[in-house]
């Protein structure tokens, strides 16, 4: 039986295209990516769960990208994805325009790629040297946009429970929290970008936030985000990003506006990123500080915006035409709040600090067929499971 499945998989790979499909005189191009990731079930620690409640280390994912470019200055783009063959999600769907032919200035409108940071714009299998995602872009904190804690103790009791958090205000149904920056959904809005040889700048106005990108708007707020990248020499990129947008669901804001007065409940974030490559090396890193302003409903109050600090450094080295090795060191920590009932009334991080190291390697079986295997260890200062090691393997194919 296994032999037959293997044979079927081999035959399937043989009939898949080797490169992008072109039609309509080359104005329409279609490409795709299939990744199959095998790993252990994790129904107690949830270190790698995404905001769609899938496990990044145990996932089957199919994505298809399409572009119609009828002229050099105009294009429609889309990318649809399905995770674990459940639902099909339009990850990207937008129009791209270059108003002036001679100027490297572009405008994109629709469901667009995020301008903040770098990781969320990388393609999943081909550009990720490992299998897991950085904590900043995947790990679920206990915050939610549609449900908020009434006081500091409500938030502290959810430490390390971002996979399914619940609060007394707003939506009463337990649901996954949000990552610092979501790499699994893109936001909807307009983006403008100027890209010269050494300097690149992009700004966007979108309906969601970094943590909670949206198609429909849930709070009549807009997020303004931007990034500047500098390429001082070939191979080196240094970037800085910022974003600010309304985070909390309108229903909660309206319910407490009379009591608390008009307030902005925003997510604000700043980040820096860098990449250097040379020869067979590539090294990347990002650091992000984000904070969310929550309603001060009851005592003990959450006096200040709650913050998260996160960063990672990853490197990949090619040992030869086919073999490569990679490692990522990652951390996520949180600002402190003070409750009454919990932690003896001492200032405590509002969510549990997480650290992660992931190392592995891969082999390019073909140019567009890569096998990877990684070992990932996680430590967490809270929650039901404090630490856990995972082993995962992935086969990814693109055309």
């Amino acid at each position, binding site marked *: 039986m296994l032999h037959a499945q293997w044979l079927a998989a081999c035959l399937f790979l043989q009939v898949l295209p080797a*490169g*992008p499909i*072109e039609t309509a*005189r*080359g104005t329409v*191009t*279609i*490409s795709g990516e299939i990744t199959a990731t095998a790993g252990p079930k994790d129904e107690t620690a949830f270190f790698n769960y995404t905001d769609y409640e899938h496990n990044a280390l145990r996932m089957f994912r199919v994505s298809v*990208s*399409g*572009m119609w*470019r009828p002229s*050099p*200055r105009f*294009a429609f*783009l*889309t*990318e649809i994805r399905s995770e674990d063959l459940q639902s099909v999600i339009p*990850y*990207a769907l*937008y129009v*791209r325009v*270059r108003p002036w032919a001679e100027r*490297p*200035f*572009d405008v*994109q409108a629709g469901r667009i*790629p995020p*301008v903040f940071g770098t990781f969320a*714009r*990388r*393609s999943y299998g081909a550009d990720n040297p490992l299998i897991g995602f950085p904590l900043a872009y995947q790990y679920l904190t206990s915050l939610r946009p549609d449900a908020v804690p009434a006081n500091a103790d409500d938030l502290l009791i959810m430490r390390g429970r971002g996979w399914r958090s619940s609060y007394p205000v707003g939506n009463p149904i337990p649901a996954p929290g949000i990552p610092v920056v979501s790499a699994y959904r893109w936001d909807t809005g307009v*983006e403008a*970008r100027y*890209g010269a*040889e050494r300097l*690149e700048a*992009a700004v966007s106005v979108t309906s969601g936030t970094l943590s909670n990108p949206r198609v429909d708007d849930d709070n009549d707020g807009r997020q303004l985000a931007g990034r500047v990248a500098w390429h001082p020499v*070939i*191979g080196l990129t240094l970037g800085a990003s910022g974003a600010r947008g309304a985070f909390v669901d309108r229903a909660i804001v309206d319910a407490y506006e009379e009591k608390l007065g008009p307030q902005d409940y925003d997510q604000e974030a700043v980040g820096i990123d860098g990449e250097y*490559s*040379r*020869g*067979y090396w*590539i090294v990347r890193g990002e650091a992000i500080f984000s904070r969310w302003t929550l309603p001060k409903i009851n005592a003990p109050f959450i006096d200040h915006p709650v913050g998260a600090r996160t960063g990672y450094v990853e490197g990949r080295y*090619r040992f*030869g*035409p*086919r073999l490569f090795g990679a490692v990522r060191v990652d951390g996520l920590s949180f600002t402190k709040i003070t409750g009454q009932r919990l932690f003896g009334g001492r200032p405590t991080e509002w969510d549990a600090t997480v650290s992660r190291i992931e190392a592995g390697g891969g082999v*390019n079986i*073909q*140019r567009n067929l890569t096998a990877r295997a990684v070992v990932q260890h996680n430590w967490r200062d809270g929650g039901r499971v404090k630490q856990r090691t995972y082993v995962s393997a992935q086969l990814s194919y693109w055309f």
Partner: protein
Amino acid sequence: MRALALSAAVACFAVSAAEPLPAAGAIRGRVDVRVGPSADVRPDPASLGMGVMRDAQDRRRSVVYLETAPRGAFEPPANRRARMDQRNERFIPHVLAITAGTWVDFPNGDRTYHNVFSLSKAKEFNLGRYAAGHSESIQFNQPGIVRVFCEIHSHMNAFILVFGHRFFALTDDEGRYRIDGVPPGTYTLVVWNEAIRGDAPKRTITIAEAGDVDAADFTIR
């Protein structure tokens, strides 16, 4: 299959390496490739702006070669060099035909990194990332077809055809080719083009005597 044919050519000529070449004729003709160009550019929905609209890759260049080399075709390998540029995120030329033992230089003429590599059986290599003005070289010793790519730019690709003999020719802009110095005899003429799927078109051709010029045309759809 085509790589095997190239290998067979080398095997044949190695057996008869010591014999001198007799007076020679030529084979000429035209390969009419009726295949549209291809840009090979993948959609880039993750990009924040418009990429450069790449010229479609001209796929009309073909290589015509003798499947088995004439007896006495041996030439001691010299320190031959060829060049494949990286310019405007293209390999230039897109198709290169060389004899085994040739060194190929890969200069980077762009203001961005490139990372030339191949996973082909005839030659696996990875030159790493290097910047504009720098060049790396590789010697191709084994006959076969080497597909060349850039690890950073997925639309960059090229072909290097490595032969064990010198009886091959790359077609020009009009599809014309000419193989000179072919000794009298009967040969199988084969045409290679990247658009060919399945068996390569072949033609049996005879050079009756020295100075004879035979013609063979091909059409590829």
